[in-house]
């Protein structure tokens, strides 16, 4: 069997393809001209609510609206 072909530099550094692809996409979005840039960045905003569970019951949820992880 062929040994692993030359891996891309990002995989050699421990990054997965998805992380690489998302980083590329974010960089491109940050280089857009004005109305498109705010549109793109707001489109990619992620809002989520987290609630920790103890003893089978959910505690009060916290709402996070971070910009997406790079």
């Amino acid at each position: 069997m062929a040994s692993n072909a030359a891996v891309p530099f990002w995989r050699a550094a421990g990054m997965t393809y998805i992380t690489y692809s998302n980083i590329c996409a974010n960089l491109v979005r940050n280089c857009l001209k004005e109305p498109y840039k705010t549109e793109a960045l707001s489109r990619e905003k992620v809002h989520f609510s987290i609630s920790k569970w103890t003893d089978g019951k959910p505690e009060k949820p916290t709402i996070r609206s971070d910009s997406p992880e790079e």
Partner: protein
Amino acid sequence: MLRRALGLLPRPIAAARARSFSTDLPAAHTADATFMEAWNKVMPNMDPPKTPLSFMHPRPPTPSSIPPKLTVNFVLPYASELSTKEVDMVIVTATTGQMGFLPGHVATIAELKPGVLSVHEGSETTKYFVSSGFVFIHANSFADIIAVEAVPLDRIDANLVQKGLADFTQKLSSATTELEKAEAQIGIDVHSALNSALTG
């Protein structure tokens, strides 16, 4: 040693029955016969429910002669940029270099690099800058291009690109861990691709 190698040769040929490739077209969807019978027994007057498969159009078969146009589906996670558009040629920047696809191209899967995608239809060319993605060309001259982010070139701000390039070049020299170096390298790659897209 050579004679033994020669002896081994005929075997793979004999063993290669026509196994279907995963890239071959799936058979057109026919409703499941046992389900239909059971349904009709219980509910003869009602239409059976449709399954997701029945909503999907089967891929058109590979024509025997090369079709005149390439049919392109260009999709992004949030929008379908081109949907079954008939074009003459598509040029993409794959990790292995620039590739052009004409109708009748051999079935290919290519991973895209940050770079320009140009769609040629008659005398007009539409260019997009693609951040990364994949392109699948099927044997029947259908091309599926999927990208995470793709923008027409006129939406790119040259100053931000220059600034980004300078930033990341500086980050690369000051990076310590492998991960930081990789991120800085990605930044440099993307920004220099953006730069050449704007100037090229």
